[in-house]
């Protein structure tokens, strides 16, 4: 029989729980922490003191509360003092940010994605942001969101179809360039990490079963089931863009035919709108805009995509029975412009029991979700063992 957890384990567990709470929920009084975490007052006091001693949280007297009695101290994450770097590698653009504990974006940089080497510009971004850091602050690592298949074990990007990548150890390369600054670099898929961010502090807060459909050039999904991220055996799960929805459809870049991506992706929308040759986010938004202004061809294109979007979402809803489906990236605008089609297909094709409580939503964090999710990944180790 295994002995119960040791004092040390319990303490580590509680420290992590408290730090995570402050990290996710923002500043909070000791009194509220006591009731939220179900620990007694002196334990909360001791735990906060330990976290404050290593500079992870700070405590201060609150402003006038207008109530009787001595006010409880307010605990907040030291966003200025403890931070991670986050990077997002999209098809068109790369971005990087310095994100403080508590999920506060302190600084950010963005540029077009260079065709060849993305690690050098990312290093330059990080170095220039590092110059603005105050004294005594510490970097706990970096997280990178990539639109591609990422091996969970070592963060190697196995395949980035729209980046033209094959087996790219982008995390290791970035760490090699900045060995003194970055103790670790973790890599994840952009849809997974956006879902994580929306789940932690966005529109999916408090939901345990969500699907975040993300579209850049291709389509991917971040899936959270039972409160846990579903990334599969190797970390490659959630590639919903490559489920075959139309066996008689067009060939897909992956080698298959009629993948969901070939019906609802950027290329499909632009082709149906008669705008072949154009690419990128602005071109997609131009079609949505033209549809709203009455351009018949653009309207037909948006309806076509909305229809197929509904088919796929109906399948996903039947399989996962989520409470929330979030449409991110350019899919946000396409969804809002075709919500009638999407909802109609979903209501028609999904099983009533699976779909009755599903809400379709747009993200709350917008384009910051990928960066915030990457930072979340980087903070994970710290939150699991704050003093480790």
């Amino acid at each position, binding site marked *: 029989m295994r002995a119960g957890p040791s004092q040390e384990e319990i303490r580590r567990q509680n420290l992590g729980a408290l730090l995570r709470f402050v990290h996710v929920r923002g500043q909070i009084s000791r009194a509220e922490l006591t009731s939220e975490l179900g620990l007694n007052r002196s334990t909360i006091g001791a735990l906060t003191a330990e976290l404050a001693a290593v500079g992870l949280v700070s405590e201060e007297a609150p402003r006038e509360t207008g109530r009787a009695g001595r006010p409880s101290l307010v605990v907040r994450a030291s966003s200025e003092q403890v931070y991670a770097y986050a990077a997002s590698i999209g098809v068109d653009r790369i971005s990087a940010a310095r994100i403080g504990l508590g999920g506060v974006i302190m600084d950010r940089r963005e540029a077009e994605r260079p065709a060849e080497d993305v690690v050098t510009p990312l290093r330059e971004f990080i170095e220039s942001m590092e110059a603005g850091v105050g004294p005594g602050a510490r970097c706990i690592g970096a997280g990178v969101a990539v639109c591609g298949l990422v091996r969970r074990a070592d963060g190697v990007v196995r395949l980035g179809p729209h980046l033209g990548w094959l087996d790219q150890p982008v995390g290791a390369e970035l760490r090699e360039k900045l060995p003194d600054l970055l103790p670790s670099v973790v890599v994840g898929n952009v849809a997974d990490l956006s879902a994580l961010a929306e789940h932690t502090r966005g529109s999916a807060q408090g939901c345990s079963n969500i699907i975040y459909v993300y579209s850049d050039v291709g389509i991917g999904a971040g899936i959270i089931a039972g409160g846990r991220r579903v990334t599969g055996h190797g970390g490659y799960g959630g590639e919903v863009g490559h489920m075959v929805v139309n066996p008689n459809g067009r060939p897909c870049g992956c080698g298959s035919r009629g993948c969901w991506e070939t019906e609802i992706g950027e290329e499909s929308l632009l082709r149906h709108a008669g705008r072949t040759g154009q690419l990128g986010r602005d071109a997609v938004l131009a079609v949505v805009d033209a549809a709203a202004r009455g351009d018949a061809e653009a309207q037909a294109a948006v309806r076509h995509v909305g229809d197929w979007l509904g088919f796929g979402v109906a399948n996903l809803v039947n399989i996962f029975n989520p409470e929330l489906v979030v449409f991110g990236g350019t899919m946000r605008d396409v969804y809002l*412009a075709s919500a*009638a089609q999407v909802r109609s297909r979903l*209501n028609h094709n999904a099983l009533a029991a699976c779909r009755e409580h599903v809400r379709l939503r747009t993200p709350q964090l917008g384009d910051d979700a990928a960066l915030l999710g990457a930072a979340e990944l980087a903070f994970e180790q710290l939150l699991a063992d704050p003093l480790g």
Partner: protein
Amino acid sequence: MSDTTAPPLLELRGVNKSFGPVHVLRDVDFTVRAGEVTALVGDNGAGKSTLVKCISGIYTSDSGEVLVAGERVHIHGPRDAAHHGIEIVYQDLALCDNLDIVQNMFLGRERLSGIILDEPSMEELAQKTLAGLSVRTVKSVRQLVSSLSGGQRQTVAIAKAVLWNSRLVILDEPTAALGVAQTAQVLELVRRLADNGLAVVLISHNMNDVFAVSDRIAALYLGRMAAQVKTTDVTHAQVVELITAGRSGSLGLQPEEAL
């Protein structure tokens, strides 16, 4: 998610309204729940505006009952409606261009500190309200409304309606005059109002807007409530049929009723 056991926030039973010989509303039943967006749809002249004006106290209904949170009330004017927590954002927004955001939000209901205006507290409350709605597009609450874009004006008008501890906000075509990006922002704001626990009535002709944010759809047809359905149960085609013909299969008015 709304609490289905609580009485609906607003319930109309058998409301009638005539203007002379024109019978505009015929025995209209209408239910609005807290935490939900109820879309009110119907063709031009179906009675949407009249129904909303009966709720807001601009018109008095000829017969019928109005219940707010389960209690029977009499609404004889806009002040009665405001007293029950019902606020309306009209299509023209009713904002004053020459005043700033705070002045607009408190127009006619200014806070006083002694005999002078309590500017700091009004400013703080305006800021708090905008922040509570996650509005990031407005830089300063002291900006003149004339300097705002269409979407920002709509946002201010909605924030003004939310400020008064309102429980029901009625929005008349909030996205009609907006571009795509601003429409998206306003739709997200409408959704957030309901997610924050308010009851929202959205009047719109745009089926995409209706399907994007609503939980229930109420379709008026020639002054009658054709059907009030859950958005998760119907298709676009069915709603269009309800609007244009008053019925769709087993939904809506049956032939002998739909004169």
